């Protein structure tokens, strides 16, 4: 290939096979046996046979390797070895050794199961049926379980002895008399040697790559010095690597063991020395092995040995292999620049002079490139390097005569020239939570030292300018540049794949400006109109002024209309109008803004179905950019010349309103005092399931928040529309009405963990208050506004609440970050195949049709493939009025014909749209055809990394979620985990949610009346004896226990004395009961005191009726029927209860659903729960992402967790698993089992530097074998 094309084809790794090195292999690889514990002699030369022997490789440039004769730059380093005087256990394999010892015979080494079974298993493994997945793992597990139970060896009849394993590396055998005998590694090794290959294979291991005895180390490989370089400090002192230190210890101890053995030392001393050797070898591999002290450096710092080098975020896998450092990148502070294009990025000249683009010299650019070379590296625009056709790179900085090189330039040369305007670069801000965190911008070289960013692209990056820094990367190859250009441009990212709406758009002052410009009374004289139009880049003819005459005037709407694409019509409700209850006020007809104000609803970022969204969808992304850019420039220019400020005076509240607010508060305080009185008198109406204090607290909190709302309302009534604060909050530019209220009226209750502030001193929050002060002020209620200023105490409370906010954010970002990492790791390898299935790289199907309709959410219209309604509207606008209308039959026929090409849902929609409107046949046809066209256009493309997109779409909003559990406002006693914790719980596939709840729907006989519903509820509620007993007495003389039951409680729970008696009657107890007095007596013969006490406790815990785990029930009326809401969940038992509607009853325990109703039901429940959780937080996420997560979590037939024990843990690739979590054990397991990584996934290929098999990386070259002489080759 290389010879054919002249292009260097890089070597490609096909697969990686893991294995254990055998002692003979280690010796074979070794270039030197290490016997001397010293490293260097007095002259600083490496001692031969020492750990820095130059045959192991060389470190410094001038030295020559003793093995290969290369210098340090060329020599890769060579392994040595240490012959251990006594074998030792390899820590990472200790668990495997323990398993092997327990599963095999101590005498003959065979598996401890009968020959017949061995044969049966072997037969099955030879030809495994495909409906038994993971058969190898499962057989191994089964054999282990059986062998553990065996008493004698079925092969040689030897007795089996228990093995006791003490972490990390000590084994004992329990002899028949109960004494424990130490098993030395030497003995263990002998036993492991006896295990036959065939038996070993049955346990899932591969004798070809790992014989069991190799797990005990006899020969220790010594890594080349290049792996553990010593560093020479400035002072000339040599400092050795941690690994070298550890190896020195091993060599030294090894010598001592050998001496002791040879001199015939007493066994005890020898044993101690061997233990020491074992310790050093163990810590050499893993210095964090459990229950042994880590080895320390002289300074006291724990040593970083092999396992520590691989593990964790900064370890080899995650730190060096999955995360690579790159050239051609820059980072600096960002600042805003509304004068550049949204698709541009401003780059400081200084940076432009350092970052280069390789440009091939052609006859057409020869001249200009010569000029660049002449300018050299220091003068912009210049060039830093030239590469001659023979591949030699010349650094222009060191060239004395650049002119000569410039003149020598000819086609075939490559010039690495400075970045210039129009180059494409990738721009990124961390954390990169979604794909819009890296976008392609066009370069605009500017003075000064910051990156300049258009404010409208802040939302996708989540950037602001309070000191944020961003990264920039310059693609170097043609392919990279093309991909950036075709896939990553800013305007192509306007629509977020998360919800199919725009994520880029106007923010802050742009929105203020758009309101100020487009409100009804804005008039502009022609001069100003022309100036602003020019600023926006308008170069067409001026329209006719709205007001003609001597002093012609234009309206603001006219000005804005100039930039709306021609023949564009739309209608929507502005945010401004919404706040005053009006609807559909913004009307755009034929590219003219007819009425309504433009605000966030029309132009804003993260605002679906806006004007911007419609333009992007209907006219394309380039048109959207061409609309957004000038519109924003115009708005900026307008607001700059008009002026807009918000000051202290704007916060003034009229005296009478202030008085009103004061009165509201006073009334509230009185109300609270009243509640407290009632509470003290015990007259407070209790709420079921709540303590009386809590009821009081809830009421107080309620009235206090009402008071603040009321104050806000009072304020809103008097604030004029032209108040800048009102303008900003109503247009969505910044702030909310709550913020206005806090600045102008009062701050309101400061809360910690959703409750009033009570912590601090005993029975009071601060020492400034009396104990048990009833006033709300004492518990963090702030009556002052920000404008008037807070009192010191109020300020303190406010700071407490503020601190909570900060802590909350910190914890949340951590949690959601980890969730995102898990999601991405679980889903990164999912992609669309050419047959539109979603598969993992092994070819396992996750979804048969992506999102069940194969529509790309990023190309969808807010989730739907086609907005047929709007399509019809547009088609009908062009309809000629005189043509005859089509009949219903005609239209239905069309709908039928075309519906077959669409999803059932769209087909139905098409039908309704066609039948509900009058139209001609040609219009109907047009609608059908365009629906199909749009549908096809919105289809997802093969290769798309749908997994990553889904993971990002669910993970990214995680940061925006509230952390804490949310208490349902109002009186209902529901307290369910929501928000981020709930989402994490769901993707964790926990067996038990932290707050299990059920909605029990009832059958026809019970759902209508409350009493009937109550009956069912009583059957479900778990009732123990202690729940209904008023007292329990023990008669020590007769040995009986008498229960007195509370009639009222019994009534509440619907049980009788007899029920209790029956429940208690078990075994030999004698039970009698008396309905009159509601007592139950239990007596036992042959009693003693402890027995009686035990019996009493047992009785109290006895279930009388109901379903275990259901701790609370309440009735709720929903759509005219009674529904039981429970705390606690047990689907199986509840469904079995008479009166329950089995088809509609739900639980939030997904695992339970999987058990009772099956995996499909669990998948649906998962989808419902995830979307409910996101929806409740007001976060929009396309269904397709949720469906994919749910399908992935259930595609193995069981609920799999998104994490190391689930989806990531069951990945085929060893490297992917090792790079995620539990690195070292994963590698150890792969080694003994001889696992092979075929490098088909994403992580693996990142690690080995391959092409990742998603997106543009799935394109593969196949050769038609029929034409290439029938040779089967790929």
């Amino acid at each position, binding site marked *: 290939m290389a010879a054919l094309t002249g292009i260097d084809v890089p070597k490609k790794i096909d697969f990686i096979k893991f294995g254990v090195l055998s002692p003979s292999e280690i010796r074979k690889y070794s270039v030197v046996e290490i016997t001397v514990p010293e490293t260097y002699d007095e002259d600083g030369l490496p001692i031969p046979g020492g750990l820095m022997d130059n045959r192991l490789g060389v470190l410094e440039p001038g030295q020559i390797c003793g093995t290969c004769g290369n210098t340090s730059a060329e020599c890769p380093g060579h392994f040595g070895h240490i012959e251990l005087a006594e074998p030792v256990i390899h820590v990472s394999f200790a668990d495997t050794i323990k398993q092997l010892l327990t599963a095999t015979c101590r005498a003959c080494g065979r598996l401890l199961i009968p020959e017949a079974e061995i044969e049966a298993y072997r037969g099955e493994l030879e030809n495994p*049926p495909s*409906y*038994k*997945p993971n058969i190898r793992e499962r057989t191994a597990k089964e054999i282990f379980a059986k062998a553990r139970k065996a008493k004698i060896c079925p092969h040689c009849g030897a007795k089996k002895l228990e093995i006791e394993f003490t972490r990390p590396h000590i084994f004992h055998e329990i002899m028949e008399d109960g004494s424990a005998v130490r098993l030395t590694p030497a003995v263990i090794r002998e036993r492991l040697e006896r295990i036959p290959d065939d038996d070993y294979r049955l346990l899932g291991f591969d004798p070809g790559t790992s014989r069991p005895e190799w797990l005990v180390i006899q020969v220790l490989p010594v890594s080349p010095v290049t792996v553990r370089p010593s560093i020479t400090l400035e002072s000339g002192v040599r400092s050795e690597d941690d690994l070298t230190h550890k190896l020195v210890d091993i060599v030294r101890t090894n010598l001592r063991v050998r001496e002791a053995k040879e001199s015939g030392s007493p066994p005890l001393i020898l044993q101690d020395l061997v233990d020491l050797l074992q310790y050093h070898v163990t810590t050499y591999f893993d210095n964090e092995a459990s229950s042994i002290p880590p080895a320390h450096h002289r300074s006291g710092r724990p040593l970083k040995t092999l396992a520590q080098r691989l593990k964790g975020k900064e370890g080899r896998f995650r730190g060096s292999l999955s995360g690579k450092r790159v050239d051609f990148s820059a980072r600096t502070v960002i600042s805003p620049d509304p004068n550049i294009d949204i698709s541009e990025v401003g780059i400081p000249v200084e940076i432009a002079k350092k970052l280069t683009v390789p440009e091939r010299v052609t006859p057409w650019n020869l001249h200009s490139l010569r000029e660049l070379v002449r300018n050299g590296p220091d003068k912009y625009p210049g060039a830093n390097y030239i590469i001659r056709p023979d591949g030699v790179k010349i650094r222009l900085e060191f060239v004395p005569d650049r002119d000569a090189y410039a003149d020598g330039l000819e086609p075939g040369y490559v010039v690495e020239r400075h970045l210039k305007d129009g180059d494409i670069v990738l721009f990124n801000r961390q954390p990169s939570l979604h794909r819009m965190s890296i976008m392609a911008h066009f370069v605009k070289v500017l003075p000064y030292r910051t990156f300049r960013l258009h404010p409208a692209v802040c939302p996708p990056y989540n950037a602001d300018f309070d000191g944020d820094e961003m990264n920039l990367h310059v693609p170097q190859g043609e392919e990279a540049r093309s991909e950036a250009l075709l896939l990553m441009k800013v305007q192509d990212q306007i629509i977020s794949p998360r919800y199919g709406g725009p994520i880029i758009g106007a923010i802050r002052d742009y929105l203020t400006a758009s309101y100020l410009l487009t409100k009804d009374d804005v008039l502009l004289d022609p001069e100003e109109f022309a100036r602003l139009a020019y600023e926006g880049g308008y170069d067409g003819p001026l329209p006719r002024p709205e007001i003609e005459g001597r002093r012609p005037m234009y309206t603001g709407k006219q000005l804005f209309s100039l930039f709306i694409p021609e023949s564009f019509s739309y209608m929507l409700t502005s945010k401004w109008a919404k706040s005053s209850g009006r609807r559909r006020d913004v009307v755009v007809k034929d590219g003219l803004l007819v009425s309504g104000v433009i605000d966030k609803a029309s132009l804003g970022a993260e605002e679906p179905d806006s004007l911007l969204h419609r333009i992007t969808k209907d006219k394309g992304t380039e048109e959207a950019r061409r609309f957004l850019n000038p519109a924003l420039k115009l708005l900026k220019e307008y607001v700059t010349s008009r002026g807009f400020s918000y000051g202290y005076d704007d916060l003034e509240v009229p005296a009478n309103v202030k008085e009103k607010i004061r009165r509201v508060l006073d009334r509230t305080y009185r109300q609270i005092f009243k509640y407290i009185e009632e509470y003290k008198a015990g007259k407070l109406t209790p709420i079921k399931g709540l303590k009386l204090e809590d009821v009081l607290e809830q009421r107080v909190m309620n009235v206090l928040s009402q008071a603040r709302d009321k104050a806000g309302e009072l304020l809103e009534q008097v604030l004029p529309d032209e108040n800048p604060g009102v303008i900003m909050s109503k247009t969505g530019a910044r702030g909310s009405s709550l913020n206005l209220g806090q600045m102008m009226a009062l701050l309101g209750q400061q809360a910690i963990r959703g409750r009033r502030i009570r912590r601090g001193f005993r029975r009071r929050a601060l020492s400034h208050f009396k104990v048990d002060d009833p006033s709300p002020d004492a518990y963090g209620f702030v009556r002052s506004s920000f404008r008037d200023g807070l009192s010191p105490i109020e300020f303190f409370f406010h700071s407490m609440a503020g601190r909570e906010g900060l802590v909350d954010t910190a914890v949340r970002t951590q949690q959601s970050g980890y969730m995102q990492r898990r999601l991405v790791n679980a889903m990164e390898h999912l992609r669309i195949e050419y047959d539109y299935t979603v598969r993992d790289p092994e070819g396992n199907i996750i979804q048969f049709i992506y999102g069940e309709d194969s529509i790309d959410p990023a190309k969808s219209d807010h989730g739907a493939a086609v907005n047929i309604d709007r399509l019809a509207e547009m088609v009908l606008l062009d309809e000629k009025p005189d043509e005859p209308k089509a009949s219903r039959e005609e239209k239905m026929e069309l709908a039928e014909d075309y519906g077959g090409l669409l999803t*059932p849902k769209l087909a139905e929609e098409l039908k309704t749209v066609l039948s509900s409107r009058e139209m001609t046949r040609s219009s109907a046809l047009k609608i059908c055809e365009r629906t199909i066209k749009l549908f096809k256009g919105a289809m997802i493309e093969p290769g798309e990394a749908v997994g990553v997109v889904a993971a990002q779409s669910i993970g990214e909003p995680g940061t925006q979620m509230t952390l804490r559990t949310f208490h349902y406002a109002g009186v209902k006693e529901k307290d369910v985990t929501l928000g981020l914790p709930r989402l994490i719980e769901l993707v964790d596939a926990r067996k038990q949610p932290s707050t299990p709840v059920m909605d029990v729907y009832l059958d026809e006989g019970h759902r209508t009346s409350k009493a009937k519903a109550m009956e069912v509820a009583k059957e479900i509620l778990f009732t123990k004896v202690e729940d209904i007993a008023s007292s329990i007495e023990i008669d020590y003389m007769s040995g009986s226990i008498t229960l007195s039951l509370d009639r009222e409680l019994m009534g509440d729970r619907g049980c009788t004395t007899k029920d209790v008696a029956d429940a208690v009657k078990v075994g030999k107890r004698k039970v009698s009961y008396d309905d009159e007095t509601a007592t139950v007596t239990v007596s036992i013969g042959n009693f003693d005191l402890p027995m009686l006490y035990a019996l009493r406790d047992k009785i109290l815990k006895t279930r009388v009726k109901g379903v275990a785990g259901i701790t609370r029930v309440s009735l709720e009326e929903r759509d005219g029927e009674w529904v039981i809401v429970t705390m606690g969940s047990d689907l199986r038992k509840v469904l079995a209860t008479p009166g329950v509607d089995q088809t509609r009853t739900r639980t939030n325990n997904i695992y339970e659903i999987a058990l009772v109703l099956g*995996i*499909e039901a669990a998948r649906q429940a998962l989808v419902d729960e995830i979307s409910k959780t996101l929806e409740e937080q007001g976060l929009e996420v396309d269904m397709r992402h949720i469906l994919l997560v749910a399908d992935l979590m259930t595609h*193995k037939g*069981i609920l799999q967790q998104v994490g190391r024990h689930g989806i990531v843990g069951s990945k085929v690739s060893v490297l992917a698993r090792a790079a995620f979590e539990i690195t070292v054990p994963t590698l150890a397991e792969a080694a003994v089992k001889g696992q092979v990584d075929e490098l088909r996934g994403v992580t693996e290929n990142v690690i080995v530097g391959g092409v990742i098999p998603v997106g543009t990386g799935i394109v593969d070259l196949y050769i038609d074998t029929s034409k290439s002489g029938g040779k089967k080759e790929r």
Partner: protein
Amino acid sequence: MVLNPEEKDELLGRYHIRPDQLPYILSSDPVVREIGAKPGDVIKIMRKSPTAGVAVYYRYVVEG
């Protein structure tokens, strides 16, 4: 719904897959027991879909 052998072959042919590349469902799954499917069968599932109205899914019955 349990697919008959021809339907199963057609499905596997359509996607060029081995049966073990289909999503699984355990033979102990309540629904599998209800419809009497055996390990090695492929079952067809009609789902209500929020995006497409109706969606078809297949699962391969495996032991467990």
